[in-house]
């Protein structure tokens, strides 16, 4: 059975800190891994990673995929209170219809 596990489940940091969120997966015919940010509403798309070792960046956020060790990390540098959210990772199989298997999420709280 496909499984996506995120760690830590929750994290409290202070503004300016750097955080690393982890996502490990066991997925048959893995195709891609996606990261979403969820505040008090709908998840918003951050990154899609398909190739191993290629870092994707958007401002203070970056992410990389390791297909050999079956994990991805999401880094946030110089955190701000607006980064407080639940961060979800999800995976696609190559063979499936578009279903995303999500992890349970990491709740990040950034204190002023």
């Amino acid at each position, binding site marked *: 059975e496909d499984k*996506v596990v995120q760690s830590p489940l929750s994290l409290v940091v202070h503004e300016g800190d750097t955080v690393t969120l982890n996502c490990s997966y066991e997925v048959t015919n893995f195709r*891609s891994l996606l990261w979403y940010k969820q505040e008090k509403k*709908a998840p918003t*798309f951050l990154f899609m990673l398909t190739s191993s070792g290629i870092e994707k960046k958007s401002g203070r956020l970056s992410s990389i995929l390791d297909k050999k060790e079956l994990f991805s990390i999401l880094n946030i540098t110089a955190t701000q209170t607006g980064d407080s959210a639940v961060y*979800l990772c999800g995976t696609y199989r190559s063979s499936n219809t*578009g279903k995303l298997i999500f992890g349970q*999420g990491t709740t990040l709280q950034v204190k002023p």
Partner: protein
Amino acid sequence: EAEVAQSPRYKITEKSQAVAFWCDPISGHATLYWYRQILGQGPELLVQFQDESVVDDSQLPKDRFSAERLKGVDSTLKIQPAELGDSAMYLCASSLEPLDGYTFGSGTRLTVV
């Protein structure tokens, strides 16, 4: 920026009552998904449509849940009768093609009392 529209935003219902949620995907998006997110967990797929056809409803509790997308555009998810364990956020998402990243709507938060 195009959005996925969902309504209502919040719904409180008594157990054994019927409840329905509506979703209007981004124009032109052929693939539509309904996910359920229980508090503290990641979203889980309930049903996926490609145009008006159901592609995956393997996790939909069909004794009480139904979903339709009659004209291949907007969609309705219904629960009848609602149970206490159905309390959750119901998220609709759409994508141009399967395996594109999706856009989620703002969700309907259902509380069953």
